[in-house]
């Protein structure tokens, strides 16, 4: 198991993270640090615990063991979660993008984006709309501001979901397989927005099967299998000279598919 030494400058620090669903152990001792502006891409076979790992980083899953410090707060420590009010405040700083978009279907694109800022950052509707329009421009969807989510393509929905997360001005963005539910021709538009964010210095943790994205954008590629990190390092090392046999096998299987 690769264990990165503790870094006081880390924006995310994970130590001995363990999580089970009933008898099934999903995370079996994860140690990892993310420093600001890093782009971490998490890869690994299905069921290796990647998504659970990510979801433990904003408290959507409660880890039973170990510790997660993120954005200066201890999210969980040996099964003890941050109190609800602090957890809500923390989540404002940690944006999350889901595989299935999870846009609010009863709200227009603009209202999806302004809901958080209006309810939590105390912005007026007008102020929130100005910010939303800037974000929509960034994700290339200015013309869809008044559309309802049902009328959007998958790629457009995911770009709105990214804008919605960005509206809270997060310090970290978590992406849980953001392109896995998309038709192949729509993957590019979402990755493009993610690359833009990375180039602007957003700290990102991305669970994905898009190996080209990992090669191009990641600072560190994390390979998970069986609930542990089997290998982590810069993409050039992981993709050309992995030290672990399991990494080699996984990459062969994935890369031969594409």
């Amino acid at each position, binding site marked *: 198991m690769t264990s990165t030494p503790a870094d006081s400058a880390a924006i995310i620090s994970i130590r001995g993270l363990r999580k089970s669903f009933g008898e099934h152990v999903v995370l079996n001792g994860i140690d990892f640090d993310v420093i600001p502006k890093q782009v971490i891409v998490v890869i690994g076979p299905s069921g290796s615990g990647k998504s659970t790992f990510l979801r433990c980083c904003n408290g959507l899953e409660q880890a039973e063991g170990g510790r997660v410090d993120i954005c200066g707060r201890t999210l969980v420590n040996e099964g003890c979660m941050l109190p609800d009010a602090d957890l809500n405040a923390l989540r404002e700083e940690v944006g999350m993008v889901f595989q299935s978009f999870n846009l609010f*279907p009863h709200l*227009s694109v603009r209202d999806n984006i302004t809901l958080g800022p209006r309810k939590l950052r105390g912005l007026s509707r007008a102020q929130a709309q100005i910010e939303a329009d800037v974000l929509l421009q960034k994700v290339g969807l200015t013309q869809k501001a008044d559309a309802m989510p*049902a009328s959007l393509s998958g790629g457009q929905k995911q770009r709105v979901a990214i804008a*919605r997360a960005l509206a809270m001005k997060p310090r970290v963005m978590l992406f849980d397989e953001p392109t896995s539910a998309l038709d192949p021709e729509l993957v590019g538009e979402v990755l493009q927005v993610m690359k833009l964010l990375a180039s602007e210095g957003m700290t990102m943790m991305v669970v994905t099967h898009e190996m080209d994205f990992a090669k191009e954008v990641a600072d560190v590629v994390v390979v998970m299998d069986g609930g542990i990190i089997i290998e982590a390092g810069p993409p050039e090392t992981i993709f050309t000279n992995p030290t672990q046999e399991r990494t080699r096998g996984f990459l062969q299987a994935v890369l031969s598919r594409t």
Partner: protein
Amino acid sequence: MELDFSPVWTGWTQLLEGALITVEITSVSLLLGCALGLLAGIGRLNPARRLIYGVCTAYVAAVRGTPLLVQLFILFFGLPQFGILLPAFLCGVLGLGVYSGAYVSEIVRGAIQSIDRGQMEAARSIGLSSSQAMQSVILPQAVVRMIPPLGNEFIALIKNSALVSLLTIHDLMHEGQKIISVSYRSLEVYLAIAVLYFVLTGITTLALRKLERHLKAGGMVQ
């Protein structure tokens, strides 16, 4: 046999006044039922909150497991034994509202649980509290799904309201029976009562259908 509707024509204002009381008692009971149903439905979402869950579950079980008529009689004839003498209209509203609330609570619970888990996760992930998420994200979607079963419940409530005639409330049923007691034309008057109930339930059905169509047009329903 000859049908003679003349008692209905001479007593039609009396029947309409009764129908108005029926509308009043049903409307107030409906509001009470929806309020109780919403609270009990949300209370039954999380078994981990044992006290709230237990109270709400006991309420639903007790009310659904006993006849409405018995509940109404307990309120009207039973409570006075403890010196609690409630006006008949209030007994009717309480009885119907509490009864309806138990059924509405299951509609509320079912609709909320049918909303994809990802909606709550997405709402929580931007920092909304669970009550903010419930209010802004889950309930607006769940309400749309509640409309068809709530329509059934509203119609059942209108029809069940006929039982309050036994509490001396001058509703449609009660007024009809008064006409029968002097005219002895049971069939004709009961037919007239049936038609008036049918009109009331029909208006409710149409109104709910219109509301559903309106929400669909607004993109609330996919």
